[in-house]
């Protein structure tokens, strides 16, 4: 496989991330997806390389996905999940950094509740830093796997219309998708209550904001991405009740039937809130493809950021 040089040694976010680099990652991921379907889905490419999964925030899916991606490429993998309670105030970032440096790892996959932590680490380490989610800021690998999924399904992302429904305000997935989709020439329609989808989001890309999930919209768009609604948003008064949210913005079976395109969700799903159980059976659903594609995309990212060792 031809190995293209990405313009940045890190993957911190999709804001301002070059189109060519996104396409290079997506092209490379396609090759790895084939590998994953082979009887022995493993390559020796990153033998001798070490990847550190540094997850300050608990995650099962993303961490497992990176875990698998590294192993499929024969890299060694270390998982660290520093305790991050508000009482202990979290491990000090400089200490973390010194430890990372001392371990001489080649790539650090970092997730943290605070925006900017991967950027901070990137400034202070020689390892390639991959943002696996920094607070409500960005989650570029998730958006890349979403772009990959759309591209596999539709052939091209340019010209697609994608509705992102739900808690955009607190969503790193939404932000990265807004940037990535806009860069590739898609149109983004953000849907949700005004409290969770402020109109200022229109300034961040090729974005429209609507506060009603109309049937016409479901029929007009190529993809509907439902976002996870966290129950604590209810306590903070962003909407009146989960029932109300579900009624206005939930993808019910009824609504799912009206989706002309595809249904996506970054997972894990809060069934009964943003998706009604069974909704996935009413339309073309790519939710599990997203999971499979996640491994291929993350393999591509590791591969492109880490030059193979010689000899």
């Amino acid at each position, binding site marked *: 496989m031809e190995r293209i040089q990405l313009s940045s040694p890190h993957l911190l976010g999709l804001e301002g991330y070059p189109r060519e680099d996104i396409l290079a990652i997506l092209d490379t991921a396609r090759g790895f997806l084939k590998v994953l379907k082979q009887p022995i889905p493993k390559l020796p490419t990153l033998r001798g390389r070490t990847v550190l999964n540094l997850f300050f925030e608990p995650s099962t899916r993303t961490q497992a996905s990176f875990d698998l991606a590294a192993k499929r490429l024969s890299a060694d993998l270390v998982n660290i999940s520093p305790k991050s309670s508000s009482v202990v105030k979290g491990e000090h970032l400089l200490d973390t950094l010194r430890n990372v440096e001392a371990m001489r790892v080649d790539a650090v996959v970092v997730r943290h509740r605070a*925006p*900017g932590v991967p950027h901070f680490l990137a400034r202070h380490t020689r390892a390639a830093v991959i943002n696996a989610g920094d607070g409500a*800021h*960005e989650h570029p690998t998730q958006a890349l796997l979403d772009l990959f999924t759309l591209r596999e399904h539709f052939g091209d992302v340019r010209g697609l219309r994608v509705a992102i429904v739900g808690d955009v305000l607190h969503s790193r997935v939404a*932000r990265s998708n807004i940037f990535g989709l806009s860069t590739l020439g898609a149109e983004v329609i953000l849907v949700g209550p005004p409290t969770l989808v402020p109109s*200022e989001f229109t300034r*961040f890309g090729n974005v429209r904001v609507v506060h009603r999930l109309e049937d016409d919209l479901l029929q007009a768009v190529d993809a509907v991405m439902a976002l996870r609604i966290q129950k604590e948003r209810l306590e903070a008064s962003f909407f009146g009740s989960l029932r109300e949210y579900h009624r206005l913005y939930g993808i019910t079976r009824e609504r799912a039937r009206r989706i002309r395109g595809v249904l996506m969700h970054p997972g894990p799903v809060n069934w009964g809130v943003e998706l009604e159980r069974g909704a996935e059976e009413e339309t073309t659903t790519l939710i599990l493809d997203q999971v499979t594609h996640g491994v291929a995309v993350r393999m591509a990212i590791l591969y492109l950021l880490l030059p193979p060792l010689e000899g």
Partner: protein
Amino acid sequence: MARKLLRGTVDLHGNPLSVLWEEDRILALGPEIPETEADEVLEVEGTVFPGFIDPHVHLRTPGQEHKETLETGARAAAHGGFTTVVTMPNTDPPLDRPELLRGLYEEARQLPVDVRFAACLSVGRKGRAIPEMPLLAEAGAVAFTDDGSWLEDAHVAYQAYAMAAALNRPVLSHPEDPRWHRGGVAHQGERALKLGLPGIPRESEELAVVRDLALARLTGVRLHLQHISAHTSLPHIRRAVAEGLPVTAEVTPHHLLFTDEALETFDPRFKVNPPIREEADRDALRKLLPETWTVMGTDHAPHTVFEKEFDWLEAPFGLSWLDLAFSALYTHLVRPGLVDLATLVEAMTLRPARLLGLGDRGVLKEGKRADLVVVDLAATWQPTPRNTFSRGKNNPLMGEMLFGVVRLTVAAGEVAYRG
């Protein structure tokens, strides 16, 4: 009695100006004072100003001496040309008892500059009851403040402001109604939204300002609105001033120099409360400086490097300023012609003196306290963790080349710093 003469210096128009003083009082000023008048001559090149007065610093004592002590704070002040500073009572314990204040004044006697203490506006800064304000005033409280938070309860605030008015002490209010946000850490605007940072809206300040102005009208208190950050607060303050209320607005170096564009760096040294806001806010504050009711306060908030290097959500708020405030403002506002030197100096001398009721300082005049600073405006320096005296090195201008090197600081007639 020893008489000292400062010569070789010029005034802010560049005309030669020598100063003669005896003990802590200025005896004479003039273009040429004969050396024979003095027992000691200080020959220094540079521009001589009245010693700077900072109505808003955090010297962290008692309780957080790892961030700053009275000693390191006073030395940083002297290094920055400040001869009087007022330190805030949000310490551990908070300064809400006269005994505490007396003990601190005892310690402060040794210091190279005049450190004054403000006392709490409410018991324990909890906003539920007023402290022994007359006894605190007797013990030397120059002002009352719950700085760090706003006295939310209007009933308690009413009593506290009325009491301060009767004691002829200003209230230094931190106008920010926390009910406007949930854990905000940055200006609520496009940039914070894009970066996923919880915001603090302008309105949290504006509405607190409006409440405070209403209380100033009711009680007649001298109201000083600390660290104004939002352009939307300004029309309310202007109206109150026009009405004749005794109100002053504080501007800080960071709100004059930075904008929320800095958020893009995720450098927690820019994290401050109230937050640095947009260009429109910064520019409105710059235009405010010529108003005589505007007072420079640095909100000097030292933190250790270790504390400040947390992520943006966890890092504490505040910048360390005493060592470099004048140089920073001179370099970035006066030299580019955005603010004139006389205005900047007045905002750092005469206006804070008036606010604090310190009639004996803030100008260079016969009979006034011999508080002065000599700055070589043409010389440059680079503030670094090594050449600054504050324990707090948390300022993004560290390492930058700044104009304006303090050559001499004299406080109450004594040399407090000589570079």
